[in-house]
């Protein structure tokens, strides 16, 4: 284990000694799989028959007309099984778990998307499955907890720390250091100790590989810019990496929350509030205080509400290869509303961050140019969260009356 897994100065493998052997085993299995063309072919086949791949690249004609600038194309990761790009990573890791011969998977989840995706994979592959979820998130995301449990997973509420995503990751790591002989940790994003960032980004690169082929087939050229939201960073890595050597601009959009100036956000690379640190097994930019204690973060989109960011993106930020911006909660809800009304598409609140920045820039580009927005997930599945974000009064009445019906039953 000699200084592997670095992207510039970020990444690495900062884990308790007991995990070292397990991570080396995982790395070896991953390297063997990656160098075997049959493995990728099998992955593409499974994603085709189980998760609607290749996902379409949709021309957003109405939005294009509305803004009067660049032609807007939308990569439809929302059409994956379970409604987000998360399916790519979990099915890929599932195939790897089969190769390693392990029988149990564990995962962390914030909003619940990665947990639901992992639970479907475990059900299909016949693995026993435990999902760690911050107790606050369990309260906020009952519909996803419902699905995970129905799919046969055990959902463990985490009552430690701030009781959100980062605490669920810590708890999953604690399970893993105890049970690694028969258990694989399906980390949900391109973060954590090596080889996770590299492995998750590799599975997610199926997004960019498809998009690259599709945009050239449709427009005859590469796009001018690509926009993706950035929480942990896996959908952004997935669509960006296959375009890294091309002369196009890559734009990552972080959660601006209630505004950068309020401190209630999750902007690690687009604003000066974050600093370099080491936690959860890797080195990157974290939102932390002067002592190195992690701070609370906020976003209307639970999937972007995370203190760290992929070391791959931290490096691309430092090298100036990816530009980072942020979108506020208010801007996000407006962009979602416009997209629904003009295109009939319902991006997740997470994905809507990418739409905000694309909408700001599209009018300044020429109609000869095209841009791609990665619609990493669908919003209709998160009706409770989205209805809250819209402060829809009729929805509230419906919930109140349903609650009353349950109470009286």
């Amino acid at each position: 284990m000699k200084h592997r897994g670095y992207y510039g100065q970020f990444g690495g493998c900062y884990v308790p000694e007991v995990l070292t052997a397990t991570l080396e085993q995982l790395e070896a299995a991953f390297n063997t799989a990656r160098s075997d063309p049959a493995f990728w072919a099998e992955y593409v086949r499974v994603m085709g028959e189980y998760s609607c791949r290749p996902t379409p690249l949709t021309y957003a004609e109405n939005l294009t007309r509305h803004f009067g600038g660049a032609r807007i194309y939308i990569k439809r990761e929302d059409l994956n099984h379970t409604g987000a790009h998360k399916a790519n990573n979990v099915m890929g890791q599932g195939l790897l778990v089969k190769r390693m011969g392990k029988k149990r998977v564990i995962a962390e989840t914030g909003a619940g998307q990665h947990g639901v995706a992992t639970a479907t994979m475990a059900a299909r592959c016949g693995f026993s499955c435990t999902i760690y979820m911050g107790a606050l998130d369990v309260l906020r995301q009952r519909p996803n907890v419902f699905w995970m449990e129905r799919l046969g997973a055990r959902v463990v509420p985490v009552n430690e720390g701030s009781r959100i995503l980062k605490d669920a990751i810590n708890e999953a790591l604690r399970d893993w250091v105890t049970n690694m002989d028969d258990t694989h940790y399906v980390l949900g994003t391109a973060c954590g100790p090596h080889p996770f960032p590299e492995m998750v980004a590799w599975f997610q690169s199926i997004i960019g590989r498809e998009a690259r082929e599709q945009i050239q087939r449709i427009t005859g050229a590469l796009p001018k810019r690509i926009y993706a939201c950035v929480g942990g960073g896996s959908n952004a890595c997935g669509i960006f990496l296959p375009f890294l050597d091309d002369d196009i601009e890559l734009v990552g959009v972080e959660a601006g929350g209630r505004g950068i100036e309020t401190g209630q956000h999750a902007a690690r690379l687009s604003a000066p509030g974050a600093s370099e640190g080491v936690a959860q097994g890797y080195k990157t930019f974290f939102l932390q205080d002067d002592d190195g204690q992690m701070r609370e973060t906020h976003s209307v989109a639970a999937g972007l509400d995370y203190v760290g960011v992929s070391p791959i993106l931290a490096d691309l930020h430092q090298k100036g290869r990816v530009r980072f911006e942020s979108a506020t909660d208010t801007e996000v809800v407006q962009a979602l509303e416009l997209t629904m009304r003009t295109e009939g598409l319902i991006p997740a609140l997470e994905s809507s961050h990418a739409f905000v920045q694309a909408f700001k820039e599209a009018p300044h580009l020429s109609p000869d140019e095209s841009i791609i927005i990665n619609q990493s997930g669908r919003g209709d599945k998160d009706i409770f969260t989205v209805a809250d974000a819209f402060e829809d009064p009729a929805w509230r009445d419906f919930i109140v009356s349903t609650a009353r019906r349950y109470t009286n039953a």
Partner: protein
Amino acid sequence: MLEDYLRNRLREKEILLMTHIVLGYPDFEASMEIVASMVLAGVDLMELQIPFSEPIADGPVILHANQQALAAGASVRACLDFGREAAARFPIPFLFMSYYNILYRFGVERFAAEMKDGGLQGAIVPDLPPEEGADYLQTMQGHGLNPIFIFSPATPDERLAYIASCARGFVYCVARKGVTGRETEFSSQLNGYLARCRRATNLPLAVGFGVTDRRDVDFLRGKADIAVIGSQTIRIVEESGPGAVGDFIASLR
């Protein structure tokens, strides 16, 4: 030198005791009281944990203590000052234990200089494998401090030897997989692992994770040099207050 101190003590005692506390839990005054009663009860060395918000190697008891200490406002500065005061007041070696981010944010060189100046003997940083710790190792060596490294039952022989080559003072052998504070079965199954540890290094061996009572300490006699008691003393303080710690330590050997 820490190693010499341990060897001298081992001439008088069959097994040494190292205890662990989380600084600022429940508060710094209580922490000092606990240290005082532990020293009085014959503890041979102590690790002082600087609390961190993401303590991945710790189980529920120590995790909770970390969070409570931080919620009560325990700062790195206050912990360093505490270590300095403890080292000045009590005649046993003290080590800092924390996660790498605490050192990294403070500055590894500055942190080591503070330790040296404050009379601390070294540090245990469970999420810093030697491969990632080149700067740390060089700095610790430069200040004559002991970087304490960790062996685990999952560590192959070749790697035990590599880790041993970076270690100074003693080596901390975790008795089982998992996190701190859960039950460990101290049985003959451990013998093979401890023998592997012994073959890998001439340094004294400390064994921790799940050591809770005299029976566990007795089991380790002749197989290890230091028994480490972590979560259990925190439980005792939580249940019976700092005053109960002395009797508990005295009951261990």
